[in-house]
């Protein structure tokens, strides 16, 4: 029999390559994973045999991910660059997937036409579209595709026992494992085990007359008959799975993933978090959901019984945290490490043959006959139209999901950043990106500079990172308080990581950078703001690495391509030989078990109808709920939620549409009012939670207490507003707030300030900065310093003065010791200091010793994380001594000192007052530093407050500060002999520069307060200017 080419398959391939091949150029680079694979590929392109990569996480090993896909991209990149390599591999993966589905379908259904249908459907299946165009999981796709190619070979080995098939199947398994490690492991369980069951069934079938005659006894007999083959295959594939990526397993054993699990949407309860439900359940299943009864019915027929079990487990596991079963089934650890979306992907792929079968029967088989007989031809066409429409809708919807809900920021031009890093030896320091999304991997691939952050969290090593459920520091704002808390630890102690530059694509992080002591350098031409930190030493030229044995490196470098080569020779080559010999080819064994598709079960059709109606009801109910929830004017709560939501996303026109139309507030006025408000809350806050409590409500009027929680880069803000709403023509509206009517007396203001410019190196040269061009470090003096224990946590407090004649950037580093002079903790001053001091200016400071400050980091991080709370676990060794290092560096930026305290009112509970901005720049975030003193005017504690609203020029802003109460405070050590300034003893500097210091001169102007612990208070002002002109 001459085998004819399968037209459907060819059509599928043509359409598939045209459709996906064109669209990958618009989607792949904005997927979650593709650029990470590109980064790995860049690593192999530069050092094929050296697995250690310095660029991320202060060094990690690429042996933490199977290398085949990365090495393929790397090899192809030598021809046309990394992106050429990536797109080529993506094209190959598309071809592999379509042909894989064809072969798998042929194996399952034994019908070429059905398999052809399945391959066409596979092209548009929403799970494949999602995996490729949204997730960009190339290794996963290649893994599963090659596995599908392997399944017929495994079947033939088990069935016929010809060694040829053993070798071809094993060769394909080895390709699978080198491209993706999880696929063959779970593929064993979910694809190969049921396949073995199917082979046994087929063998049994041959021994008896009908399917019904297959009893358990017959089955067992057949099993023992095939036992040797099964075992030999199982053992050998185990050897291959372990052997081919042996370095990976060794690395996993040596560096077990000990990190805190990172939340993943696929583990959510899909009913609660509907976005996760959409992405990880609805989209991959797509139109298959309607066919679930058919799929289960068919897979639970006797021949496919084990596939039925397998797909059931896969379906249930894919539901993530919606039910308790996956957690129970997988166990707590596996549940928290695995991303469960892969189970849904496999289930949907497993469904594809039957999907093809259903469509075949629907289009030209018995189902068509049945429906037409029962309901008429029009109904059949109508249903066909609806199904096709839904199928295409899911495909288009999935393709365009990232258009409507971009998962990544706009594409960033990397060249200016790369040039910046190459200039002036900037790549001698580590950098970090903020708000780049997965594009950070593309930047890392293009530069030699190293990043503190990274994009492959399984390979992280720093305890600061592994103890936090933060995927990347880069997008920490999406992880709320924990994310920001983790980020600020890096920002506060950048010296530890030689971390000097930040590329910020997100204004959100600006305040935290400023208050952690960073300064703006300049904006690159692609709009990326560069921040730098002074006083950070460059990365040392020799860096530590974890070396592995040479044979492991060679194995890792050679094995993946070797497996491909062998698989190629064994599979394709033999095909060629067969073709050339033009020998009549024997029909594969599995084609002998054909289904004649003559009688579609009526019951099944009925069930499918009922199921479809149930689904339709669920969908309509969901849409209804969605509408009620989103109809902004439906209730006062809805109106407020919509109003706050609009403000949060800066959709001011939407917000205006919710404003009481009778309040005579024109939109122009509203926009103007919004445009003049600046500050932490209006410019840098993200709404985290909102709670509305209707305090009173009549038919047309409501007062609502709104409790809002805002995530800001600096701290969590809880705010309570009272809003009144009115009902007009059946719709609820929000009454607008009063605006500040204050008018400053003048129109035009002038002011004189001293400006500074440090030109760095004076001569343009590639050499290191010449010693003549290095400025003297400004001389600072530590006026006081003491170690205190406040409510159980330790802190260094004191005052520092710039006694030089130039403005200084101040870095304070405190170290705590116990009685045996053992170092316990070290940390830098974060928010509690004015990081920039003018000549002779004084700042109070406080150094908190947060989680990572302590030597025993793992122990000291509390279980529930709060960045403002850093009580370390009780030590056997208590800190009793301290060392304080202060470093000054000349800085000309952020020297705005125009804010004053213009009014104060002090009660026992709180300090209220007003700040007046007398300068010419708008203060975006004012910060107040409060220093507490006892009755003898001894310094006891330093506290701070950020004012949520900004201060416009020549205007006032009120503040409200609750005075600390019921503190337990204990001064542990006041000995200042270990205080150093720029490496020199503080005492000698003090004696030399200010020998006749007037001690405690400003004690006469300390503000007295009524308090049990404290008698005086000092208020200092620090200001962040968001837009310095």
């Amino acid at each position, binding site marked *: 029999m001459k085998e004819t080419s399968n037209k459907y398959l060819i059509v599928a391939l043509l359409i598939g390559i045209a459709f996906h091949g064109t669209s990958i150029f618009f989607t792949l680079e904005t997927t979650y994973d593709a650029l990470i694979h590109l980064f790995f590929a860049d690593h192999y392109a530069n050092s094929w045999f050296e697995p250690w990569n310095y660029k991320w996480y202060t060094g990690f090993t690429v042996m933490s991910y199977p290398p085949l896909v990365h090495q393929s991209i790397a090899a192809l990149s030598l021809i046309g660059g990394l992106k050429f390599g990536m797109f080529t591999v993506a094209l190959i993966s598309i071809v592999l997937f379509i042909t894989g589905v064809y072969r798998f379908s042929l194996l399952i259904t034994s019908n070429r036409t059905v398999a052809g249908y399945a391959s066409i459907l596979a092209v548009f299946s929403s799970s494949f579209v999602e995996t490729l165009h949204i997730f960009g999981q190339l290794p996963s796709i290649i893994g599963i595709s090659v596995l599908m190619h392997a399944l017929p070979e495994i079947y033939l080995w088990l069935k016929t026992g010809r060694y040829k098939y053993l070798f071809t199947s094993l060769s394909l398994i080895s390709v699978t494992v080198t491209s993706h490690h999880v696929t063959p492991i779970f593929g064993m369980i979910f694809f190969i085990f049921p396949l073995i069951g199917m082979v046994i069934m087929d063998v049994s079938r041959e021994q008896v007359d009908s399917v019904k005659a297959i009893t358990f006894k017959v089955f067992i007999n057949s099993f023992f008959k095939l036992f040797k083959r099964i075992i030999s295959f199982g053992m050998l594939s185990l050897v291959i799975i372990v052997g081919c990526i042996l370095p990976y397993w060794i690395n996993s054993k040596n560096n077990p993933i000990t990190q805190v699990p990172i939340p993943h949407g696929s583990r959510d309860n899909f009913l609660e978090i509907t976005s996760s439900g959409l992405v990880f359940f609805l989209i991959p299943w797509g139109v298959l959901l309607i066919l679930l009864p058919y799929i289960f019915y068919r897979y639970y027929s006797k021949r496919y019984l084990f596939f039925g079990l397998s797909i059931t487990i896969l379906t249930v596991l894919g539901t993530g945290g919606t039910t308790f079963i996956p957690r129970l089934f997988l166990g707590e650890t596996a549940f928290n490490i695995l991303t469960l979306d892969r189970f849904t992907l496999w289930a949907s792929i497993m469904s594809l043959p039957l999907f093809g079968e259903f469509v075949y029967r629907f289009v030209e088989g018995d189902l068509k006959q049945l429906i037409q007989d029962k309901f008429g031809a029009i109904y059949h066409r109508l249903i066909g139209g609806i199904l096709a429409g839904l199928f295409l809708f899911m495909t288009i919807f999935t393709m365009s999901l990232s258009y409507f809900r971009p998962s990544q920021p706009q594409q960033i031009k990397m060249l200016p950043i790369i040039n910046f890093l190459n200039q002036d030896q900037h790549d001698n320091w580590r950098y970090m990106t903020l708000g780049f999304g997965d594009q950070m991997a593309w930047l890392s691939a293009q530069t030699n500079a190293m990043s503190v952050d990274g994009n492959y969290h399984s390979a992280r090593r720093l305890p600061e990172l592994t103890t936090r459920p933060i995927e990347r520091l880069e997008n920490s704002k999406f992880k709320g308080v924990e994310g920001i808390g983790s980020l600020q630890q890096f920002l506060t102690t950048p010296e530890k990581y030689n971390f000097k530059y930040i590329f910020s694509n997100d204004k959100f992080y600006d305040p935290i950078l400023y208050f952690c002591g960073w300064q703006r350098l300049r904006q690159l031409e692609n709009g990326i703001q560069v921040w730098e930190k002074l006083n950070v030493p460059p990365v040392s030229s020799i860096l530590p690495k974890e070396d592995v044995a040479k044979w492991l490196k060679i194995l890792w470098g050679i094995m993946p391509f070797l497996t491909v080569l062998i698989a190629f020779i064994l599979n394709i080559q033999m095909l060629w030989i067969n073709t050339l010999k033009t020998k009549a080819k024997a029909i594969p064994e599995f084609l002998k078990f054909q289904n004649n598709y003559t009688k579609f079960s009526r019951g099944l059709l009925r069930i499918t109808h009922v199921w479809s109606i149930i689904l339709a009801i669920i969908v309509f109910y969901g849409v209804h709920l969605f509408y009620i929830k989103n109809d902004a004017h439906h209730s006062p709560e809805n109106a407020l939620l919509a109003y706050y939501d609009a403000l949060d996303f800066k959709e001011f026109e939407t917000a205006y549409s919710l404003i009481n139309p009778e309040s005579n507030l024109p939109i122009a006025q509203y926009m103007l009012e919004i445009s003049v408000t600046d500050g932490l809350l209006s410019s840098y806050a993200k709404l985290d939670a909102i709670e509305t409590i209707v305090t009173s409500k009549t038919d047309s009027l409501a007062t609502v207490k709104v409790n809002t929680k805002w995530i800001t880069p600096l701290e969590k803000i809880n705010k309570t507003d009272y809003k009144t709403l009115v009902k007009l023509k059946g719709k609820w509206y929000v009454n607008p707030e009063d605006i500040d009517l204050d008018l400053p007396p003048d129109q035009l203001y002038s002011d004189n300030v*001293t400006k500074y410019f440090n030109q760095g190196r004076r001569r343009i040269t590639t050499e290191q900065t010449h010693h003549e061009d290095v400025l003297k470090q400004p001389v600072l003096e530590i006026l006081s310093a003491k170690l205190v224990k406040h409510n159980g946590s330790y802190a260094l407090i004191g005052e520092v003065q710039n006694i*030089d*004649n130039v403005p200084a950037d101040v870095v304070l580093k405190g170290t705590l010791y116990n009685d045996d002079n053992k170092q316990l903790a070290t940390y830098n001053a974060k928010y509690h200091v004015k990081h920039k001091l*003018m000549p002779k200016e004084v700042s109070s400071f406080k150094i908190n010793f947060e989680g990572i400050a302590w030597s025993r980091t793992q122990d000291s991080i509390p279980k529930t994380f709060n960045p403002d709370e850093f009580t370390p676990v009780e030590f056997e060794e208590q800190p009793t001594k301290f060392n304080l290092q202060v470093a000054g560096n000349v800085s000309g930026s952020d020297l705005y000192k125009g804010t004053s305290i213009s009014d104060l009112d002090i009660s026992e509970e709180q300090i209220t007052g007003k700040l007046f901005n*007398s300068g010419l720049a708008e203060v975006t975030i004012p910060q107040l530093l409060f220093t507490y003193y006892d009755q003898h005017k001894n310094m006891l504690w330093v506290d701070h407050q950020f004012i949520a609203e900004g201060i416009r020029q020549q205007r006032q802003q009120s503040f409200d500060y609750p005075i600390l109460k019921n503190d337990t405070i204990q001064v542990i050590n006041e000995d200042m002999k270990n205080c150093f300034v720029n490496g020199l003893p503080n005492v000698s500097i003090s004696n030399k520069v200010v020998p006749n210091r007037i001690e405690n001169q400003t004690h006469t102007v300390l503000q007295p307060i009524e308090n049990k612990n404290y008698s005086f208070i000092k208020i200092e002002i620090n200001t962040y200017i968001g837009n310095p002109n």
Partner: protein
Amino acid sequence: MTLKYTYLLFYVWMVLLSMPSYANNGAIELITKTTQFEAGQSISLKFSNTDNETPSLYVSNSYGSTIIKPEIDSGILNYQIPQSISNKTGVVNWKLLANNSLSGAFTIISKQKAVALETYLGPPSIQAGGTDYSMLVVIPTDYLDNPLADSTKVTVKHQFLDNQNEEVVLMKNRIAYKNIYSETKTGRILVSSECLGFNSKEYTVNVLPAIPTDFNISHSRNHDYADGNQITTFSTSIIKDQFGNLVSDGTYIDFFITNRSNHILKTSSTTIKGIAVAKMIHPDHEDQWTVKAFVEGMAESKPIELAYKTIISDFNVLFSEDYRTVTIGPLKSFMNQMVPDGLEVSLSVFQNEIKLNTLTKSSFEGYATFKLDTNNFPSENYTLKIETAGVQKTYPNVKL
């Protein structure tokens, strides 16, 4: 007695020790008698040799060591010292690696002609007053980058204001150095040096002012009314250090304002040409301010006092029929003009002596209007307290 034996033993041992070397010493002898060379010269050590032996020569200086093979020329061993050694000044030790342990040393001195003056000056800025100094270190070097010999004369020249100084220092331990002390004036010291006719480039030390001394402050304002709107400006006198130098621009001055209720307000500024100008908005109620400025730990001003007169002695309150709209005003200022927009008016609502709420509004064209809605204030009796510009009015038992 024992001691003698010990000595004797020692002598015998010494003699025995020196015998073999004596025996062979006749074979190889040093011919080159010079022990001092100039850097850059071609240096070779010649040895006479009667044996056919060709031992290597081990040569070592402070940069490193090497082994040299000889060239043999009619029985004379000629060891050419490589440039890497002959170009560097210092002592070179050598030793023949023959059976005898013939060894010696020679010195290489620099060529006494400076081609470069390696100069270090730091710190680049110092404080006026004559105690702070910057150190100049000069290392004159020859064409092979060797420091010139000790006791070479180096002239250090510096210019400050009208003075121009020259001073000769001698090189010692391969460097010449001089501490350049500041004088009492601020300015710029230009420094250069010269050695054997070769001049360095110009170096700069900035002399910055010493710590500030006490000063006076003054104020200026458009009027002395507490309108909560105008700006009062505080200025310092010209602040100088003890030597009469202006303090450097940018020096930070804190102004502390103690008001009548003993609250300490604060404004600050930085100096330009010795004068700091700080601004403060007028209070919105009658007040008395005592202002004192500080440069913390270093200098302060004498306090000054200033008073602000109230602009409003009384105001009208107008209730609507249901008492739910309260209009305050007209708020008239000192010339009976309407107060500038933005004067804060507060309305506190009490019920049974308990404060329920305080509403604040800014005045607009002389008026402020409060609306008490039925939601927050159901129909009951309340006491209303209205306050603006320090004037308070109370309306007890208002039925809303």
